[in-house]
């Protein structure tokens, strides 16, 4: 089980727990604003853009090529940007904080 805290653009903090699935699914299940997941998680819509907490970035890993192409053109990109649909939740991510990139 991993406990993950989402911080939205308006500063709201939402703590959520899951043992598997993607960050996008977890955010959607907990109505985190700024995470739409329109395409259902196939890396097509970029509506699940998040910034991973720096010291967890080595655990989530960097985006793959296709994901990086999508992020390159998105607003509010940082060196810790990921698409939530491409980050699988594991116990390793327990305690992680994630900033939602868009409103």
């Amino acid at each position, binding site marked *: 089980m991993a406990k993950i805290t989402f911080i939205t653009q308006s500063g709201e903090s939402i703590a959520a727990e899951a043992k598997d699935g993607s960050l996008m699914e977890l955010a959607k299940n907990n109505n985190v604003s700024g995470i739409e997941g*329109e395409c259902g*998680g*196939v890396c*097509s*819509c970029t509506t699940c853009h998040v910034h991973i907490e720096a010291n967890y970035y080595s655990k989530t890993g960097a985006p793959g090529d*296709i994901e990086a*192409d999508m992020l390159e*053109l998105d607003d509010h990109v940082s060196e810790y940007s990921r698409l939530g649909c491409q980050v699988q939740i594991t116990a390793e991510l327990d305690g992680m904080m994630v900033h939602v990139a868009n409103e």
Partner: protein
Amino acid sequence: MKNLELPDAFESARENKGYGHVDDQGDSVTMLLRLKDVRKTAKDWKTFQSGARPGRIVVPSEVSIRETRQIPFEVDPPQHTAYRALVEGWFKRPETEEDYKERVSEIINELVEEAVSLKEIEVVEDFALKLQSRALTLLLNIPYEESETWISWGTHVFRSDDSPVDGDKANILYEYIDAAIDKAIEHPGSDLYSVLLSAEIEGRKLTKEEVKGVMILTFAGGRDTVINAVTNTIAYFAAHPSSLDRLRKEPEITTQAVEELVRYFSPLTHMGRVVTEDTEVCTHAAKADSRVSLCWASANRDAATFENPNEVMLDRKVNPHVAFGFGIHKCLGATHARLILRTLLGILAEKVSSIEVLDFKENVEDWQEFKRKVGYDNLKVKFNKL
């Protein structure tokens, strides 16, 4: 069955040079064919604008038949941002209103029940058009019966067999919308017309012309596209009965399957932009005031990103397609369209064992150097009950 496939019309031009040309009523268009170029250009709304003369970013151009600006589609930021914010919530209702999903299910259930009871059915007119029209009453939040009028218009609001742009047909829609707006002014309700009429932007009410612009977009943007997507879905399952079986056993892949089918179908071939300053696209000079188009259909078969691009892999996991467009102008109706397709796949898997194709006529778009099959003018099939 080979002839039920949708071939990639752009492969060699995309790989060899990355663009193509189409002459459109004397106002030529450079078609961008590679996924990365399409995405980059879609994103750069300053250099590649949508807020040109109304109708000019559409290919074939509608400048000769339309003066009303479609909103937010033919507007650039900052006005675009305000318009889009105004309508975004309404177009998310398919996801946010529980009742909406149930009603889409009812509409599709009834059509599929009818289809399996018949010896044969013509899918375009008697299934896809009805489905699209009836579902549109939900998106507009108006009485179901209104769909009968739209069904009576036939499959093409703008295009006829004789000419790519048919002013008379377009006028049917524009006059209908004018009348509907006047009706909503007299008797305001909770429909999209009334909601727009009472909406405010930058501290003022929307004008009738602006309301008309949103309504034209809603009608025109979601008609041929949804009809093609639904018809092509039926053709796909006819050619691949094992896919119906798979969805029955693995309903959890439905979301991925819809994205993959939409990628493969690419119901809208391309959409234009007008160049605002001399620039380059795909190492090709693009002059100010010329037109380019973002060819979604070609980009969605780009082997630089998609493995086996001409194959439908229902559970394709990473699928960065642009079938709903890309950037600030991405399809406003996508939530509605996705719900329709997800529901359709679920109900077909539940009720239909196989589909036999009896007869069909392909709908092939003529973009001069490219002939692209986008779907069917008619498709006669028999649905076999499960």
